[in-house]
């Protein structure tokens, strides 16, 4: 088998294999790039509540008052916290909580939900799983390297690397190279 044909085969088959993770990582990459503007993992729902004033200074009574008024099973309560002199928080499973002002009983029921699919691909992309996933992620990274290198030599002639290809490769190289040079010498 000629080397260029081998490159075609490698590029094609590794490309097929890597397409799913490439899409997953790319979509997650877009989401994570904009983490300052929106939360790529979770969405938040805040529902106004009014449990009435909590005219007491006993935390047990305050907690019981809140869950009773909101018809929450007391067994679900995981904890409570006096956030400030006027803010009382009751913690519920899965990150939910009730946050009320003890003076008037007004506050919020806060829920947190994951973005379906996006949350999961973010876990893969950011490798929060660690352990075995690190091996798969390493393999995927090697696949991308192979795709990039084989992609350079897919075509020969004036449309190949020796022709117009070198200008495109050079243009792409300017981005990381420019940054590296700026970091070392420009800053």
């Amino acid at each position: 088998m000629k080397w260029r044909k081998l490159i075609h085969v490698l590029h094609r088959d590794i490309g097929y294999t890597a397409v799913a993770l490439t899409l997953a990582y790319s979509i997650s990459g877009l989401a994570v790039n904009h983490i300052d503007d929106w939360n790529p993992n979770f969405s938040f729902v805040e529902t106004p509540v009014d449990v009435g004033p909590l005219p007491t200074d006993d935390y047990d009574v305050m907690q019981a008052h809140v869950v009773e008024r909101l018809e929450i099973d007391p067994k679900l309560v995981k904890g409570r916290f006096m956030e400030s002199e006027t803010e009382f928080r009751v913690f519920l499973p899965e990150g939910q909580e009730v946050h009320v002002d003890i003076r008037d009983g007004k506050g919020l029921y806060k829920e947190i939900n994951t973005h379906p699919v996006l949350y999961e691909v973010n876990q893969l992309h950011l490798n929060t799983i660690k352990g075995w996933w690190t091996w798969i992620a390493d393999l995927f990274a090697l696949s991308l390297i192979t795709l990039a290198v084989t992609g350079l030599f897919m075509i020969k002639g004036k449309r190949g690397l020796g022709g117009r290809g070198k200008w495109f490769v050079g243009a792409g190289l300017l981005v990381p190279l420019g940054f590296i040079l700026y970091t070392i010498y420009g800053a």
Partner: protein
Amino acid sequence: MARVRVTPLVVLLSASLAAACDAPPAAKGGEAKPAATAKAKGDAATPESGKAEAAAPEGKTYGAPLEGADAVTIAQVMDDPKAYENKMVRVEGMVTDVCTKRGCWFEMAGEKPGMKMRFKVRDGDMVFPPSAKGKKAVAEGTVTVRTLSLEDTKRFEEHMAKDAGKEFDPASITEPMTIVQLTGKGAVIRDS
């Protein structure tokens, strides 16, 4: 041909992992909090935030295993942070808040109302889930103490107010804030 064109884009996207955490660089300091209103009956936070256990705690370990640092209460550190600065300690308390963008920090309730201490790990080392709220955490780390300038304090409080969806009045900040934070590599979290 199409795949060849896509590949550099993918490589660039994959290299974009180092997005900044939503968290300000450090925790809210005890000195910036309102004085404790200890008149209320019962603990400010349950489960009780007493002196941390010296033995290996039960629960799910996040990151590196605990190393057995000296156990202190959050109040001990927050009341006299300079005495613990740069020292490795173990504290425990109920988780009250978790970083929802990168999961790189959580805050624990101290022994007094309004008292909290933030436990921060390096981005990407581990991810604390929002479902940890209300659970008990045991964390080990190095106490860091930093006093912000008045301008930085205003920026910090503005950021916190924005995150909490509250209005912010810069004129309400008149004193610089001291930030006390525990920086570590691992924690154990369990149901109370």
